[in-house]
């Protein structure tokens, strides 16, 4: 029974993962990816990892919501009114994807897999908590600091305001002498607006 459910969920995860690159609507693409994660979360719950499974769904719901917003922001034609296909090196990519999947699949089928399932009476959530705040606290804290650094980095990168003015206007430091040349490296080609780059 569990096998069947896990197989169905795995198939659903793969199918929705595939749909991500096949649908024209960007919002549908993001939420297909979310469904793929939801299926993986479901497998987690079935395989007695309730916290990991549910937390995956929770995190991915929020992440894919943000992803969908960015999709609509940056993609032309987000609603899929035009057919969408924006690919390069298509053959190589298909080959690489297939090769990776087949090689990993072969490795799975050919190697002897150990069997040592988690005990049904184990309190895995409490174990995880003790692990996080016990032996692996350093790792956990490092992840926390990394996330904090990410937050700062993301804000700095995406902010318009540079140290010396708006970043899209060059943000050049003031001169060392009044009205003099800006200090530091001189940007090639100057700042200012570049013209519309692309959108194939």
């Amino acid at each position: 029974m569990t096998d069947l459910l896990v197989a169905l969920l795995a198939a659903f995860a793969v199918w929705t993962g595939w749909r991500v690159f096949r649908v024209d609507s960007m919002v549908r693409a993001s939420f297909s990816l979310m469904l793929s994660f939801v299926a993986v979360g479901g497998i987690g719950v079935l395989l007695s990892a309730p916290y990991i499974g549910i937390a995956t769904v929770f995190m991915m719901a929020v992440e894919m919501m943000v992803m969908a917003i960015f999709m609509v922001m940056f993609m032309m034609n987000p609603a899929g009114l035009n057919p969408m296909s924006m690919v390069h090196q298509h053959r190589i990519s298909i080959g690489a994807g297939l090769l990776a999947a087949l090689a990993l699949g072969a490795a799975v089928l050919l190697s002897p897999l150990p069997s040592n399932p988690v005990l049904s009476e184990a309190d895995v959530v409490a174990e995880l908590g003790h692990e996080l705040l016990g032996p692996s606290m350093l790792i956990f804290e490092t992840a926390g600091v990394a996330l904090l650094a990410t937050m700062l980095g993301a804000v700095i990168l995406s902010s318009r305001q540079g140290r010396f003015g708006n970043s899209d206007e060059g943000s050049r430091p003031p001169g060392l002498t009044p009205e003099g040349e800006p200090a530091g490296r001189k940007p090639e080609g100057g700042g200012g607006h570049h013209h519309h780059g692309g959108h194939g």
Partner: protein
Amino acid sequence: MTLSIVLLGAAALIGIGLYGALSQQSFVMLMMGLELMLNGALLAIIGFWSLALGGMPEGQLLAILVMAVMAIEMAIGFALIVAVYRKRQADMTESIGTLKQ
């Protein structure tokens, strides 16, 4: 048996993710490919932890770390996209042949 199913699913997800990451021109779609590969990795970790490692707590820790990696990838990825777009109005890989200013 269950482990094989889970791992085959993970292999397929990683394959599709690799295809997406290599083939997509748009940054956002490219990131979807990366996310999908991490999804495959997460599935494999859950499978191994639950069925082959006897519920070692470190396995769950690894899954948490993968989630943190996904969050970091998303945040920094989108911040970079915004920064590049602000500078060049470009949201496709071809548009930034060079990372010079």
